[in-house]
């Protein structure tokens, strides 16, 4: 498989498995954080804005 003889070797990354996977893991977590925070903020905004508009409509 690519530059590695076996899948186990790929996971071990020489003796640097921990370092390599930790780096990619951190990057992945921060990417997911960026995506999910935008999605959650957007959802929260629309729920709040809709309720507010409805309230204004009822008041007038």
């Amino acid at each position, binding site marked *: 498989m690519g*530059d590695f003889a076996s899948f186990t070797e*790929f996971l071990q*990354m020489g003796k*640097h498995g921990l*370092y390599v996977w930790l*780096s990619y893991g951190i990057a992945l977590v921060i990417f997911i954080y960026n*995506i999910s925070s*935008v999605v959650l903020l*957007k959802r929260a905004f629309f729920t709040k*804005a809709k309720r507010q508009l409805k309230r204004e409509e009822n008041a007038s």
Partner: protein
Amino acid sequence: MTLKLPQWFYQLASPRWFYEFSGKLLPWFSAVAIILLLTGSVWGLVFAPADYQQGNSFRIIYVHVPASILAQSCYMLMAVAGAIGLIWKMKMAHIVAQSCAAFGASIAVISLATGAIWGKPTWGAWWVWDARLTSMLVLLFLYVGVIALRGAFENTQSADKAAAVLSLVGLVNIPIIKYSVEWWNTLHQPATFTVTEKPAMPPEMWIPLLIMVLGFYCFFSVILMHRARLEVLQREMKTSWVQTLIKSL
């Protein structure tokens, strides 16, 4: 004297136009970002050859270098957008600057964390107070400072102005990061990519790196557009087009 600017500059300044235009761009940028990031990481992790000195720990380069480049580009965009906002009183520019801050801070964290993890097997230490690492840490603090400063104001316009001024002052750190490896003796290796010279590594190592850099930029544009669109809606809540849009959902 008034400066004549191209028409797209004025269009871009309209939050509504931005909202509609970015809505059309988003699916394309998202697709390209996913393709580039997947290709780049599989290529870098599986197919690129191990470094003859560093072994497989060198594969960290495929997240570390793109994150570091992007953290600086994102800062420059934030500062330039802030300046445009200050000079032309453009709402949209401040919205872009605001959207850069949180993302930039998170990417600077990736750069510093992967750098520390790479430093351990390569230099034998997680952290050294070397010029490149320290100036990069200052970049993270600048991002955090801009976010905190913005949060300290109730009034959006004052927050915009203060954040723009701080980002412009912090711009001085960018050349310091860039030249830190040349001006001082550092452990950190010099730049991987330069405009004038061919990369020192073989193509099977630098092509996936280039793909990852482009992928990181695409991901940045996607998050930036999403954040800016949300900010447009929040700031333009009083306008009829936003109210119509909210009601239609």
